[in-house]
């Protein structure tokens, strides 16, 4: 979100209001309602694989929101990384478990109230920060798109290059950590090390994630 925000155009001169919304704004709200609903179903459904598939709907809805905000590059990245890779990885992991068809009666946790508290607190903090930071920033939806690959790339590598690099170091650490963990597990259980290829690739991708 911070990437797209760097490319926002500040149009202070023109008056903006929340009344008389445009078609894009109405669509944005409708999509966000659907996305929120899908997210709620994701965390409340008792069917594990359904939860993963509702997550697809949630992430896809987010991609649509990015598109509506003219952040095309971010939207396709969202689909590519989250829908195309992370969810596939999740489903792969679920298929290795029992993941029964129908409800899992034990797919519930005693921590649900703690989880709800943390989620609400995190959401409130995020909403507060974003609203406070971008209160006076407006995207000119009618003008030239402000989230094209060129603009996003320029802002990423001019203003945000340090966080970008720090993030890649973090991912590298996760990658190395995943390899170390999987090798250690293999060393402890040398007798079951008959399938070298598939576990290795799994841990590596988890690192990438």
């Amino acid at each position, binding site marked *: 979100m911070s990437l797209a925000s760097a490319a926002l155009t500040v149009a202070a001169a023109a008056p903006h209001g929340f009344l008389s919304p445009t078609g894009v704004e109405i669509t944005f709200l409708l999509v966000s309602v659907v996305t929120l609903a899908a997210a709620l179903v994701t965390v409340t459904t008792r069917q594990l694989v359904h939860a993963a*598939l509702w997550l697809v709907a949630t992430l896809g809805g987010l991609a649509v929101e990015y598109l509506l905000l003219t952040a095309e590059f971010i939207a396709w990245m969202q689909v*590519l990384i989250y829908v195309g890779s992370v969810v596939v*990885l999740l489903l792969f992991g679920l298929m290795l478990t029992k993941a029964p*068809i129908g409800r899992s009666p034990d797919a519930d946790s005693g921590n649900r109230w703690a989880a709800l508290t943390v989620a609400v607190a995190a959401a409130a903090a995020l909403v507060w920060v974003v609203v406070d930071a971008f209160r006076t920033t407006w995207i000119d939806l009618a003008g030239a798109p402000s989230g094209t*690959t060129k603009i996003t790339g320029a802002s990423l590598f001019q203003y945000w290059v340090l966080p970008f690099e720090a993030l890649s170091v973090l991912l590298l650490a996760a990658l190395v950590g995943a390899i170390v963990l999987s090798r250690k597990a293999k060393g402890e259980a040398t007798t079951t090390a008959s399938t070298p290829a598939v576990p290795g690739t799994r841990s590596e991708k988890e690192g990438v994630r």
Partner: protein
Amino acid sequence: MNGALDVALRLLVVFAVFLTFPLIIGQTEHKVMAHMQGRLGPMYAGGFHGWAQLVADGVKFAQKEDVVPTGADRRIFQLAPAVALLPYLLVLLAIPIGPGQGAVGQVVDAGIFFVLAVMGVGVLGSLMAGWASANKFSLLGGLRTAAQLLAYELPMLLAAASVAMAAGTVSLPGIVDAFKWWWVPWQIVGALVFFVAGLAELQRPPFDMPVADSEIIFGAYTEYTGLRFALFLLAEYAGIVVLCGLTTVLFLGGWHGPWGADGLGWLWTLLKAAVLAFVVIWLRVTYPRLREDQLQKLSWTLLVPLSLAQIALTGIVKVVIS
């Protein structure tokens, strides 16, 4: 031209391509495979060299009963073929076949990312089918599909990124516009990696471990019958169209040809894509199926390093010539 009419016309053309090209490739596959194996292939349906064989197959599929197994997760089972097929229709929209605005369904600014992202979604259909069928063979097929996608998505992306670096743009028409003939030797490694990884994502032989008939019947599609099964098959052939089109556009210069790009440029695109489709069929007849560990090894120890080397080479040449 009227705006809405223009959009409708474009969608109609793309839809027509989506319905006919996979069938043409399927029929070509029948015939090419047959002749490579010293047979004739279908000869009766339609009269001339069995040209209507696939139409007859389609009619047969439509007549069959649509069975959903009792233990299956009904809705996901029924939804899976659509999830597998529709992404390819969307991707076709963005592939340009000629210069200018008139020869592409819709110009997408970040075309490469759009195409690769949406293609990746198609695999979800196979995973849904594999899990929802309540069948061990299907589940194994789904597992193998997921493992294969995770392994081959990375080299495919890296190879595409190399071309984007070379062209300085991520828009598909922009890449073809920037193309020069010497890009072919320059990007040849990336092209091979992209094509091979694409074959693996489509689960075409020799990368058809997820549907290996001698081990797991037909993988994730074992329980499917009738039209839904036909839709999965159609998705495979639509995938071939998309992969060949993309390889043509990214690595082979699309509409550029020896006699200029004007007028008959779209013919060059189609010709190159057709040759690639022939290669896809040829590979199916030629190579035996790769084992699961060989599949993973090929990607992680050969294709990923090769694509990284290609990116390094692209960067070096780009700096030298600029």
